[in-house]
């Protein structure tokens, strides 16, 4: 019934609008899964649906969500950024050192850490757009380079010494009870939404990801825009690293090992296609919350760490399979 209605609607739609519809369908799937998990957890765990726990989850998901928003842009261009976990660690330790060792005020320290991330992103972007390396390889290299650097600058020991007010970024609560990290998610998501939907950069990102050659031939300065996308991803990874550092009031050189997988999983569960051209901020947020809730729920129910990893892997399979299945049907029906 519903699919008949969908069919009759989609047959009359131009391609661009149909793409939007695909996105909406993937979000529906991920959003549905999110609702199911929320319902399940509220039934089995009396502690789940409490204000304290929801605020906790909001704070715990902040750095993953912020980083995933950057990676969404990259994946829309048919690229990938594997380096975000390492870049976050490097930004975290350098940002804390700027405050602790150089005595920079907190806002400048946070900005400094974010710029370190942007710098790493710039290298990624140039390697991809100018040197012509495959994004997978370029950012894989950065994954190990940034991790090595974060061990070198710290001698592999955590760095402390940031002023106490640095804690506000990841632990602060606004008047009215809204955690600052949650506010940050909302602001970064809104900015990401505007960039993707209301700016040239966003539209070109979709165009480059859908068909690189066509984008080039239609006069889009592909190199410049591709580089910008990696810079944004690096900057948000750096900013995410500062949020994580703030949560523990220190720079941890081993922070975020394997985090890139959570981040990419969030983007993919949210309906972005690794082939490019598809993906939305809302979908990514849903994906990030889905993963955070699985982890939170697993602890509430005292599920062993190893099983948590298996659950998340299976959710990735299901999300992507369901997504492809829906897209194929929709495509078949609109043909």
């Amino acid at each position, binding site marked *: 019934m519903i699919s008949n209605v969908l069919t009759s609607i989609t047959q009359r739609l131009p391609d661009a609008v149909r793409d939007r519809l695909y996105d909406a369908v993937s979000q529906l799937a991920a959003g549905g899964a999110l609702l199911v998990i929320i319902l399940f957890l509220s039934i089995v*765990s009396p*502690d789940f649906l*409490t204000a*304290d*726990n929801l605020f*906790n989850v909001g704070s*715990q998901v902040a750095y993953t969500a912020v980083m995933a928003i950057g990676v969404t842009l990259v994946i829309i261009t048919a690229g*990938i950024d*594997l380096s975000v976990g*390492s870049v976050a660690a490097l930004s975290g330790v350098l940002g804390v050192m700027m405050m602790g060792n150089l005595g920079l005020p907190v806002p400048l320290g946070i900005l400094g850490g974010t710029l370190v991330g942007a710098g790493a992103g710039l290298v990624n972007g140039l390697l991809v757009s100018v040197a012509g390396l495959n994004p*997978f390889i370029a950012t*894989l290299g950065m*994954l*190990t380079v940034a*991790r*090595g650097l974060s*061990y070198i600058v710290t*001698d*592999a*020991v*955590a760095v*402390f010494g940031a002023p106490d007010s640095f804690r506000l970024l990841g*632990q602060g609560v606004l008047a009215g009870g809204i955690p600052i990290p949650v506010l940050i998610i909302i602001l970064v998501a809104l900015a990401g939404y505007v960039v993707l939907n209301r700016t040239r950069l966003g539209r070109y990102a979709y165009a480059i990801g859908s068909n690189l050659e066509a984008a080039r031939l239609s006069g889009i300065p592909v190199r410049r825009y591709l580089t910008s996308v990696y810079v944004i991803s690096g900057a948000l990874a750096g900013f995410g690293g500062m949020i*994580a550092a703030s*949560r*523990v*009031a*220190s720079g*941890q050189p*081993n*922070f975020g*090992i*394997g985090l*890139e*997988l959570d981040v*990419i*999983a969030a983007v*993919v569960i949210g309906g972005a*296609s*690794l082939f490019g051209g598809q993906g939305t901020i809302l979908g990514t947020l849903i994906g990030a919350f889905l993963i955070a809730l699985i*982890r*939170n729920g697993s*602890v*509430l*129910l*005292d599920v*062993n*760490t*190893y099983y948590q990893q298996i659950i998340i892997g299976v959710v*990735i*399979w299901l999300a*992507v*399979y369901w997504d*492809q299945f829906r897209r194929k049907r929709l495509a078949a029906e609109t043909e």
Partner: protein
Amino acid sequence: MSKQIVAILLSAILALAAAACAEVRESGGGGGAQGEGGGKQGPVELAVVPKAVGFDFWEQVRIGAQCAADKSEGQVDISWDGVTAETDVSGQVDLLTNFITQGVDGLVYAATDAKVLYDVTKNAKDNGVTVVNVDSGTKPQPEDVPVFATDNVAAARKVPDLLAKELGKEGGEVAFIPFQQGTLTNEQREQGFKEGLKDHPELKLVAEQSSQSQYNTALTVTENILTANPNLDAIFAANEPGVLGAAEAVRQAGKAGDITIVGWDGNPKEVEAVRDGLVSTLVVQNPFKMGYDGVNAAVEIIREGKTVQGGDTGVTFVNKANVDDPEVESVLDPTCEDPPL
């Protein structure tokens, strides 16, 4: 699409392995350790290899080893070298093999993997190189290779006693934060802790979540444990990042002092938490003594050719009452002038 995810996962694992393979070289004692086989005349050349360099714990092993070398007045030269991640087993195998090839007189090392490193010990002995283990030995442990290490099982068995003393007759709910399932020290501490719990039926283990040896992860899982168990009375965290994360979560939840935390290791931040009353007791090992006794044992075997017995290097229970005692201070911040022996 799932193929691509698998590819990403595999590549990421490869990349992590590559990142962990980097070595940091640092030479201690006298000159370089270029081989002269005999070893009975002239200074004894020893390679001292921790599980990884760059951590407080291993730095104290180095200070102890260096102290033993310094006290020999030129009779012992040590080379200090290690990989950068405790999980880099093959990197450590390569490193030790290189030292054997160089012709050092003895290896004093902490095995990153008990079974894998047994082959290296055997290879060393076949080449006439004396071996002493510190912190972690091999499986099997050859009879003539002494181990100087903490008896983790025995020390962890005492943790429930400490918790019981704090919580009184009523007992209460306890959470356990292990750090890396599958590693020997983690398993030994878990085994000791759970054996000790059997003597205290008033202590109820209500949650068990790994910190994966990461501060952030420890913070997150402890936050969630506190949510799931609003009546939690105590936490045992089995290594440094776990203790710091648990203490931070308890502090942020405004439950400082209400929840008894017993933790492992004694880095300065943990000691600060003891002073602040956030952590009740720390189980602190004696890595200095491991390095010191390990080097002396190796020299004794090489010089005098006799068998040396290894031993438990012991733990110190550090709490607010004794944290400023001179003996405790020398364990927490060991120097050659004030050795914790």
